[in-house]
């Protein structure tokens, strides 16, 4: 914008501030609610933090929400971390390798293999959830970390992205590596993976959050509360029959559940943004 008119400035800033407020307000209310006693929260909304911050968070982390029979938060946070990491690392590993195979090797049915993977893009977890549950149950993976993560690892998004990236790597690099005596795996390790570094970071962030935010699938495959993840745990806390939900603890849980994804984004922000906007070749 070359224009510099005061009125336009005021309007644009107004719109931006309003937009930011709309996004921040619920989080702020959740935070405020998590710092009051349960009675105060049930009486109605307040906009300023109370004095129960330490007490509420300590209760949530160590004891959990007793009325709902949910485990302590620390365990659920741990479960969520394991699941999100397994999904992110598993997906990236598998898709790097399969993209490598599809782009750099000539084998029978190569194109068919690629399109088969591609078609799974159109089948999100929710669509195939019943058959997947049947398979996981049949394999005895209910109530296990494997059952939580493995079915979500199989998806094509990352494979497709890496394939597109590998196809932009100049052929001469491959040839130079061949002349330099690098076999396929060495080429993969020494050249291709380092070149994909920014893509890896961006995908890691996206997939970690994807895994962390899984709700429906953990709800289906876990009945043992020691495998509850935090996102589904919040829902469990609401399911009380004869009592008011303990909103102050639920909000503390929600705030805690947000922290790991935010941390991942903040820590990897620089690489993440680079991975989305530029490709270094």
């Amino acid at each position, binding site marked *: 914008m070359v224009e510099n008119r005061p009125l336009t400035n005021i309007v644009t800033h107004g719109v931006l501030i309003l937009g930011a407020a709309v996004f921040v307000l619920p989080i702020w209310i959740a935070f405020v609610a998590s710092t009051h006693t349960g009675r105060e929260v049930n009486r109605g909304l307040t906009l300023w933090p109370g004095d129960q911050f330490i007490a509420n968070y300590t209760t949530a982390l160590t004891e959990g929400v007793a009325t709902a029979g949910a485990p302590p938060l620390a365990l659920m946070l741990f479960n969520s971390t394991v699941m999100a990491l397994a999904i992110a690392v598993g997906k990236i590993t598998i898709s790097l390798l399969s993209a490598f195979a599809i782009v750099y090797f000539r084998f029978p049915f190569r194109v068919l293999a690629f399109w088969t993977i591609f078609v799974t893009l159109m089948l999100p977890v929710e669509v195939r959830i019943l058959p997947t549950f049947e398979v996981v149950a049949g394999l005895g993976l209910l109530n296990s970390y494997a059952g939580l993560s493995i079915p979500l690892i199989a998806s094509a998004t990352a494979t497709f992205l890496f394939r597109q990236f590998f196809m932009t790597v*100049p052929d*001469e690099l491959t*040839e130079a590596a061949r*002349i*330099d005596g690098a076999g396929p795996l*060495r080429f993969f390790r020494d*050249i291709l993976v380092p070149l994909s*570094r920014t893509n890896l970071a961006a995908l890691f962030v996206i997939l970690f959050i994807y895994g962390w935010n899984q709700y429906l699938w953990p709800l289906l495959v876990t009945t043992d509360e020691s495998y509850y993840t935090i996102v589904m745990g919040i829902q469990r806390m609401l399911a009380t029959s004869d009592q008011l939900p303990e909103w102050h603890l639920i909000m503390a849980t929600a705030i805690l559940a947000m922290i790991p994804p935010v941390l991942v984004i903040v820590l990897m922000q620089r690489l993440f943004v680079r991975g989305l906007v530029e490709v270094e070749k």
Partner: protein
Amino acid sequence: MTAITLRNVSKTYPGGVEAIKGVSLDIGDGEFLVLVGPSGCGKSTLLRMIAGLETITAGEISIGERVVNNLEPAERDIAMVFQNYALYPHMSVRQNLEYGLKNRRMARDEIARRVEKAAGILGIAELLARKPRQLSGGQRQRVAMGRAIVREPAAFLFDEPLSNLDAKLRVQMRAEIRHLQRSLGTTSVYVTHDQLEAMTLADRIVVLNGGVVEQVGTPMEVYERPASLFVASFIGSPAMNLVPLQQARERAAIAGLVNGSVPSGLSTDAVLGVRPEDMTVGENGAGADAVRFAFTVTAVEAVGAESYVHGNLQGGAGDIAVRMPGYHRLEPGTVLSAVTAPEKLHFFAGASGQRVDRAGAAQ
């Protein structure tokens, strides 16, 4: 001793396209051989077959004493310099130079010694810590050559290494490559589409056209006695004038062609060739047996030290270009005459395009 030998080498792509049709070459130890030709003539394919990046459909390639048809590129003891340099972008210059040696499990101190030596030769010692993207085109080119040198290979293969550089740098790097190859004495095969590069670098030139060798010879042999119409038109700048002989004679565009200066038994579609730099405008220094060309000026290109006069031969018998020293302004439409000595004329059979020599001409 690393000679490279090609025996009836052919390459047919799966689609049935014949890129190389039975090429045989003997490249001597320490020789600088340049493969030159227009784009699509198969010169890069041939180089990549020597490198092992393309399979060989038929024939045999040997490097030194070994037949290398089925060897991996890394096992052929060659090093290649690519047109776009193909440096590993995430590695520093030093790592780029070391990579091939590390893969060979060479001792650390030997690697360091070779890298220092190559960096010294190429003047890139102070760049070793940088990444390729922090280098200029010329510096990248040097690193690419450094990567070849540290290998101390039996042969260097260059695939149009200078075509991404600007004109001035290209001339400078050309001289450096020549000097480097001389001092290292490593057998080299160099691919280019630039006939000037070919002329200045080569011990011998191979002119390729459509997957077939048109001529092999030293730069001067190729320039002075082009073996075919194709070579005549490809080597030399501006290109050799090629005039249909019969037409030019009928329309009196050429005078002074006596029987002794024309090979006997030429067919009616024969072509006469004469280089612009072998002709003189006017009668200066014309011998008794001079051959005269009458033409009408259409344009003059002045390039500083000399001017090229373009014109139509009398009676529309063909186009002609003549070099004149110095700067000249000539109005289009001026009628001029240019002379040349009969031994500067080249004759080619029209149908085959093959060179035809005068009886008794020096071979």
